[in-house]
């Protein structure tokens, strides 16, 4: 931890640039597409899908920070975790706001009907609730107040990642489990989540073993 703090002053501008670059990139790419007239026919469908994709990508990026930080000399990467997570939440917020507010125009009767019958919405909503909670508790004051419980709370991000994965697998045209149809997105995301959770488990197991030896 001490190492991280001493490096902070030197690296701040550079890493901030990268983090914000990564976070803003999906929005910029989307706007370039809009300006080039690529989405005019059904802009809402595209915007909802792209914001969802961006949220998942950034969530995975945020989850990558911790294992990367285990590598010697890369401990500072852990500081990317929070901004990337917050960007993921921002895109998730846009995603949900477009769906609820623009696509369904806050028509609660229609939304209620959708919500009752579409499991993918339950998983998506669950993930969004978790991300909202994590975003709020990532304020430094709250972080400090929560102390140890903060870490336990923020482990929920793994649950969110799994929920998002199911959400994505259910929302594509095809059957991800049978490898049929347009399923490359959930497959890639699934591999990502699998690797990221796998390395953490592996590390736990190893540590447990070395304690016993």
């Amino acid at each position, binding site marked *: 931890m001490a190492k991280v703090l001493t490096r902070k002053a030197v690296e701040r501008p550079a890493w901030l640039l990268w983090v914000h670059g990564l976070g803003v990139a999906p929005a910029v790419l989307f706007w370039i597409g809009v300006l080039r007239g690529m989405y005019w026919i*059904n802009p809402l*469908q595209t915007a909802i899908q792209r914001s969802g994709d961006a949220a998942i990508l950034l969530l995975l990026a945020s989850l990558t920070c911790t294992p990367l930080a285990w590598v010697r000399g890369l401990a500072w990467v852990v500081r990317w975790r929070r901004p990337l997570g917050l960007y993921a939440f921002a895109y998730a917020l846009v995603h949900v706001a477009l769906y609820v507010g623009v696509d369904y125009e806050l028509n609660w009767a*229609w939304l209620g009907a959708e919500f009752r019958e579409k499991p993918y919405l339950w998983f998506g909503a669950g993930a969004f609730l978790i991300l909202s909670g994590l975003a709020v508790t990532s304020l430094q004051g709250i972080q400090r107040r929560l102390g140890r419980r903060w870490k336990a709370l923020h482990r929920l991000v793994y649950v969110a990642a799994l929920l998002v994965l199911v959400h994505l697998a*259910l929302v594509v045209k*095809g059957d991800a489990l049978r490898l049929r*149809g*347009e*399923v490359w997105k959930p497959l890639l995301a699934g591999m990502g989540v699998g690797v990221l959770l796998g390395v953490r488990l592996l590390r736990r197991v190893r540590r447990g073993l070395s304690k016993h030896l």
Partner: protein
Amino acid sequence: MRFRYPLPRSSEITPEALYHSRRRFLQGALSLSAGIALAACLPASKRPVPEDETALAPQATGRADEYGDALTPFEAVTHYNNYYEFSTDKQAVAQLARDFRVRPWTVEIGGLVHSPQTFGIEDLLQAFPLEERIYRLRCVEGWSMVIPWLGFPLRLLLEQADPMGSARFVRFVALHDPQQMPGQKNPLFPWPYTEGLRLDEALHDLTILAVGLYGQVLLPQNGAPLRLVVPWKYGFKSIKAIVRIELTEEQPATLWSTVAPQEYGFYANVNPAVSHPRWSQATERRIGESGRRPTLPFNGYAEQVATLYQGMDLSVYY
């Protein structure tokens, strides 16, 4: 409902040059916007006859469907295409399909028929009078369009082939050519695209084989040279680039019901009451409109087709 439609000039039906020349095709695409503007300003008789037959000016005779809903703009119809053989990106299809070769093209009609036949597409285009049919197209994804198709009832073709008494279903097979259709390199789909109808659905007057839209020969991205249009079913039933039509006794397997049987049934009738695991079927977004609108049973064709399904539980046969 029937629409009278004047037969297009033969040069309009088969502008071969269109399919061989990328440059001329592009010019055609560029003149589209001009064409729309012209069509709005000039009375039909004064519209200049384009010297170049590739100068595609949309020229539907009708302006709206029977509910009074306006036609979806030609640009949208030709640049927003759910055509996985080319791309899953709907707005990338037009570009990718630009050089798709629709000549020479033959369509086989076989299976349980007394007189199996093979048509050259040119002959097929001459074989039956073409009519304009303004149909709503409802995609299973929850968006819809109103399209003035040009085509003929599938019934006419089937009657010519003379189905045997044992024939109960019609199976359609699309072109399989991964060289031309890059999406077919995706191994996660069981190419080629196949679709099917029950024989009585296929013989229904609303069911057409389309060869054009907006008074123009069909563009590759819309399923040229020959596609099915079944307006009361979700769009994926309306198979594009057909090369074979087969009459069968058994219900044929279809691409989407093979890929995800729990959500794409064989019947796929537009039905707001039968939920779909993902997109809303209760409402839809009409391309070009800002809000959602309720989806109609059988896509608004219940009066004509509901009797086909009398006594069937449509939540089982979805």
